[in-house]
């Protein structure tokens, strides 16, 4: 726990360095209201999906199908809209279908005992395929301005984009669920030692299933946000986004082996990845360098916690 706290301190420190360094090197453009607003819009979907995914990874599982669920939900919005459905009906139905997609993942993992990595690589392809069947390579774009404003304008009287306000609200809920409830304690227990958790009376399968359902539903919500942000419903929306989300969660100090992590760290990780990307683009860094930096950060995020842990044991041994 102590080494983890230290990793989060390091993250906050890195965030401050990026913010100040960015501010100086871009002549104040980086921390300007306009740029922060765009930064917020850019990380909106990642922040949303990272919340339930943190719980999934803490419980020792993974869900790689989230970006495909986002694409499927976007494609369905376009399809239903073309069919003349009202948006007020489309949105709950699409979020429900997202939850169903999550339930399929969860059932395959809990009922058949399959590894979630394999299951969700499969459904990653399956859900994206379904999205393409639904909408093909066309785009639906004629959504009313009242809805697309959700993805492009700030909450009145503030500089906060709506998607970020939504993510903040959900972050509080997920934070309470993970860190201040018996449900959260069970999630940590499952990730740390599944057998032990089962023997101490935790309903492991039910909790895992509910986590996958949550991940699917929130990914569908992210699909709604994405569709209105670009006022474009497409089957290929969010292609490859799962890697950015997993990177942010791991950078946030969540152990890929389960049992360790905090939502606070993940939010810092999302901000750090998004902020760094924004800063590099603002400084005209080429796309290749951008990809390399993201890759290096991901490596660091997987290595750092284990290095700090070893250092801690080493220190204990020498004293």
């Amino acid at each position, binding site marked *: 726990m102590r080494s983890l706290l230290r990793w989060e301190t390091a993250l906050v420190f890195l965030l401050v360095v990026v913010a100040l360094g960015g501010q100086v090197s871009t002549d104040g453009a980086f921390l300007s209201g306009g740029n922060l607003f765009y930064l917020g819009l850019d990380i909106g979907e990642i922040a949303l999906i990272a919340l339930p995914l943190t719980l999934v990874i803490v419980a020792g599982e993974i869900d790689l199908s989230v970006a495909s669920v986002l694409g499927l939900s976007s494609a369905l919005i376009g399809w239903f809209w073309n069919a003349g459905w009202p948006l007020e009906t489309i949105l709950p*139905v699409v979020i429900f279908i997202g939850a169903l997609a999550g339930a399929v993942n969860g059932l395959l993992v809990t009922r058949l005992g399959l590894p979630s990595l394999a299951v969700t690589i499969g459904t990653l392809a399956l859900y994206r395929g379904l999205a393409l069947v639904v909408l093909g390579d066309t785009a639906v774009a004629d*959504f*009313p301005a009242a809805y697309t404003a959700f993805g492009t304008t700030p909450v009145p009287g503030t500089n906060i984009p709506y998607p970020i306000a939504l993510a903040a609200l959900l972050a509080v809920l997920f934070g309470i669920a993970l860190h201040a409830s018996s449900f959260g304690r069970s999630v940590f227990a499952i990730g740390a030692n599944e057998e032990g958790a089962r023997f101490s009376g935790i309903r492991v399968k039910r909790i895992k299933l509910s986590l996958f359902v949550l991940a699917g539903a929130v990914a569908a919500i992210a699909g709604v946000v994405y569709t209105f942000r670009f006022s474009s419903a*497409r089957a290929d929306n969010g292609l490859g986004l799962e890697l950015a989300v997993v990177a942010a969660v791991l950078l946030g100090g969540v152990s890929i082996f389960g049992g360790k992590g905090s939502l606070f760290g993940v939010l810092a990780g999302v901000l750090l990845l998004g902020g760094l990307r924004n800063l590099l683009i*603002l400084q005209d860094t080429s796309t290749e360098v951008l990809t390399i930096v993201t890759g290096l950060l991901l490596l660091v995020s997987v290595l750092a916690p284990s290095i700090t842990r070893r250092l801690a044991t080493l220190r204990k041994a020498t004293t």
Partner: protein
Amino acid sequence: MNTRLVLALVVSGAVALTACGGTTKDSAGQNTGAPTGTAAADPKAPLKEGLKITFLPKQVNNPYFTVAQKGAEQAGTAIKSEVKATGPSDAAASSQVTYINTAAQQRQNALVISANDANAVAPALKTARQQGLKVVTFDSDAAPDARDVFINQATAQDIAVGQVKMIAEAIGGSGEIAILSATPNATNQNAWIETMKTELAKPEYANVKLVETAYGNDDDQTSFQKTQGLLQAHPNLKGIISPTTVGVAAAARYLSSSEYKGKVQLTGLGTPNQMRKFVQDGTVKSFALWDPSQLGYLATYAAAALASGQITGAEGEKFKAGDLGERTIGAKGEVVLGPPTVFTKDNIDKFDF
């Protein structure tokens, strides 16, 4: 959590909402309100120096756009302005939005963009324009109310007339021809084919007879097989027009390795790099495509003219575009580059894309 209860609530809520109606495709008013330039154009305004122009292709490291970028940089040097190329490594619908926002943050004067998705980039372009950025689209247009000027590579008329002329010359003015298109519902292809038919009805083409239009679905293998099919179905076929870069390359590959090489003529829209060996081995006499470097060049001049206040994007305004001469803005803010460039054995080695 009782999942059955949640399910029941969601379903009943959805049904209730459907019943009372709501925001549907039919009820929603179209998003109108085109933000047109309010400032008046001053045709005598000098072209400003030191303008900052961002060049944003669909995708970086794409050969076609690298050539367009060279043209843009050439124009930038000529007008003493800084042209900076940037962009995403993938051509996904939304990848360009970050770069549009960044250009606005960097206080660039103008943005020259080929839109991956006409609508996905529109909100960001509109915001950027409100912040003073001038927006020129080229190659692929964005929603017309999200940009100032669109540089169109060629009109359907220019393309169709040119294709018919090339095949008629290649077959010596008489004989059966066929068209190998992309997909049956490709809007631009169908518009070209319609215009080709109108053109073929003219007296000078009285001896040229269009016998079939085949579809290769812009797939290499399918186009290859369709070419084979056309030749078997029409033993007297003298020529094929394939106005798609995938189709024309596949057809050329089939012809060059068959007994029909040099006997059945082929033309279409293709890139010089794809078609070079077929022009050199005599399979193809001539084909056409616009020159992407001229496209980037013209778009950059339009961006500079906008940023200098010479034009606002209104129909009828004129601006000078360096070596390409004076250009006039047409309906809907469109400027046409001109008839496609015709590539033959004589000039093909001057092009690399």
